[in-house]
C-alpha cells in the first residue's frame, strides 16, 4: 500500500504547501509587472524562467462576481472546498488557518488581509509570529457573456523553515499546484451545483477516502 501512503502524505503536504511561502510574494508581483514578452500569465512561463515557488490557476464559475467575492471574503467558508484546511477562525484582524500536516499533526498559519477590493480582489499574507509564512490572492473578473466569473488564485510557497517544512518541501514541492487545482474544482462544484461530487457508494467509503487523503 505504498502508493496510498504516499498519496496521504502528499495530500497533507500540499495543505501545508498551500499556506506556505511569503517572501516570494513580493518577488512575483515585481516579476508580474515585468511581463514576459507575451500576454500569458507569468506563472505559465516555461522553466528555467518559471518561478516554481509560485502557482496560479484560473477557473470559470457560472455565478455572479459579487456572490463569489462575498463567499471567499468569509474565510470561514474556505475549508468547505480546501481539503487540507481544517478550519479558519477569526481572531481580531487576523485569520488563523489550521492546516493538516503529515502524521496527524496540524500547523497554524496566522494571516491578515493585505488587500480587499470589493467584487474584484482579495489578498492575504501571514503575519509575524505565524508558524509559517504564506501569501496569496484571488481575483474575480467577468467572463464573456453569461459564462459567469473567472476566478484566479495565485499563491507563493517558498520552502518553509524548520524540520517539518524541509521534509515536506523536499518531497512534494510541486504538489501545492495539484491541491490548488483540486480545491478550485471543488469550489466550482460547490458554487454551481451546491455540492461536491463524489463517486463513493457509501458514506463509509467517503470517510475512508478522506482519511486516506489526509494520511
Amino acid at each position, binding site marked *: 500500500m505504498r502508493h496510498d501512503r504516499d498519496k496521504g502524505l502528499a495530500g497533507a503536504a500540499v495543505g501545508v504547501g498551500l499556506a506556505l511561502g511569503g517572501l516570494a510574494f513580493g518577488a512575483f508581483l515585481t516579476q508580474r509587472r515585468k511581463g514576459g514578452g507575451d500576454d500569458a500569465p507569468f506563472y505559465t512561463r516555461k522553466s528555467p524562467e518559471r518561478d516554481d515557488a509560485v502557482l496560479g490557476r484560473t477557473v*470559470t464559475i*457560472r455565478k455572479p462576481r459579487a456572490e463569489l467575492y462575498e463567499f471567499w471574503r468569509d474565510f470561514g467558508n474556505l475549508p468547505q472546498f480546501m481539503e487540507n484546511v481544517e478550519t479558519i477562525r477569526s481572531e481580531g484582524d487576523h485569520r488563523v488557518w489550521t492546516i493538516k500536516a503529515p502524521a496527524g499533526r496540524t500547523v497554524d498559519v496566522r494571516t491578515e488581509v493585505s488587500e480587499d477590493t470589493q467584487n474584484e480582489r482579495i489578498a492575504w499574507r501571514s503575519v509575524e509570529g505565524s508558524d509559517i509564512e504564506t501569501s496569496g490572492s484571488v481575483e474575480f473578473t467577468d467572463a464573456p457573456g453569461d*459564462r*459567469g466569473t473567472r476566478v484566479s488564485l495565485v499563491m507563493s510557497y517558498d520552502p518553509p523553515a524548520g524540520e517539518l517544512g524541509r521534509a515536506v518541501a523536499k518531497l512534494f514541492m510541486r504538489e501545492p499546484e*495539484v491541491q490548488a*487545482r*483540486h*480545491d478550485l*474544482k*471543488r469550489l*466550482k*462544484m460547490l458554487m*454551481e*451545483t*451546491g*455540492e*461536491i*461530487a*463524489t*463517486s*463513493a*457508494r*457509501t*458514506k*463509509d*467509503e*467517503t470517510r475512508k477516502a478522506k482519511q486516506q*487523503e489526509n494520511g
Partner: protein
Amino acid sequence: MRALTWHGTHDVRVDTVDDPEIINSRDAIIEVTSTAICGSDLHLYDGVIPGVRPGDVLGHEFMGRVVETGKDSTLEKGQRVVVPFTIACGGCFHCKVQQFSACENSNPAEKQDMSATLYGHPMAGLFGYSHLTGGYSGGQAEYVRVPFSDVGPIAVPDHLEDDQVLFLSDILPTGWMAAENAEIQPDDTVAVWGCGPVGLFAIQSAIHMGASKVIAIDHYPHRLALAKQMGAEIIDFRKTNVREALMEMSGGIGVDAVIDAVGMEAHGFAIDNMIDIVKQKVGVGADRASALKQALLAVRPGGRVSIPGVYGGMTDKFPLGALMEKGLQVRTGQTHVQRYTKDLLKKIEEGTLDTTFMISHRLPLEDAARGYKCFREEQDSWTKVVLKPGMTD
C-alpha cells in the same frame, strides 16, 4: 446487494457488495429493474480501457424504481425512471450548452487528473466506466446511487415496458446522435460500420432522418440481417471489397456520410489492424481503428464523418491526409444523452422507433458473467443482453 464486479481481463463476477447510500443532497437511489450489457462494456471486459479497478461495479445502461431521495432530488419514491449513462450537473457551462457528456462538475476533482493528462481536459462522470470517468458504481446491480437525480433520470409512463424504454439510457440516443452528427440530407447515401446495437440504432435513425440509402457493414450474418430488416443495404466485409463496393453503390461518387459504430476493437485481418491487435495485447495501447480508417477513405470529398465508436488513446498510421485533402468534417463524442431523452421517449410512445428488435437475450443479474462471455464470443446471435435483477430463473 448483488452486483456485477470487474476483477481483471475477462474476469467479471456477481458479488455481494455494500448497498449504496444517499451521500449528496441531489442523489437518489434506484432499485434496478433492467440493465443492459453494452459494446462499451466489452472494452472494459477486454481490458483495453485504463483505470478500471478490481471490485468496480460495471454497467451504465439501467432503469428502475426510485427507492430513496436526497433532500434536493426532484424524484419521488416509487417513480419509474431511465438513467442516462452520462452524469451531468445541469449547472456548468457545458451543461448549459447541452454538451452534457462534457459536464465539468460530475467527475470528482481528485479523479479528473488522469483524463486531463490523457486528453487535455477532464471527462465527465459516467456510471460504471473506469476511474477515468469518476469511478462511479454502475447499473449492473440491484441498486445504484444516482447523483444529480434532478437532472438526468427521465420518468417513463407505466404503459411502456422496460424493454421499450431501457435504451434511452445510452444506445438509442447514441445511434440518434451518430446520425445527427452525420448531418444527413435527403439525397444522402450513408455508410455505417458495425451492426451492433449502436450501428443498428444509427441505421434506424439515419433512415428516420431521411437518408435516401443506408449501407451497413459487418461480418456477422444475423447482425447484417437485422440491419437489412431495418431498411439498410448490407456489405459483408469478409466477402466483399468494402471500398470498391461503396464507390459502386454510391454511383462512383463515394458515400456522403460515414458512421463508425465499431470503435477501438475492430475485427479483421488487414495488416495494420493485426499490428494494432498485437500492440493492444502487449499493452502499448494502440486503438484498433481499421474501420475508421476505411471509412475516411470511403467518404466522398467534403463529406461528413461521425464517430460514435469509442476510442481511448492513440492510434497509428491514421490517414490524416485523407481527412485534410478531402476537406472532411468530423463529429464524435460520448453521447449527450440528456439532450435527447425527452424527444426520443415521445417517439417511442408514438411508435415511430422500434427499440426492442435487437434484444436477443434476457437473463437474471446472477447470470451476468455468462452474458458478458457470450456477448463477446457469440456476437452474431447475442446481439443485445438485458439483465433483470428481479428475474428468478
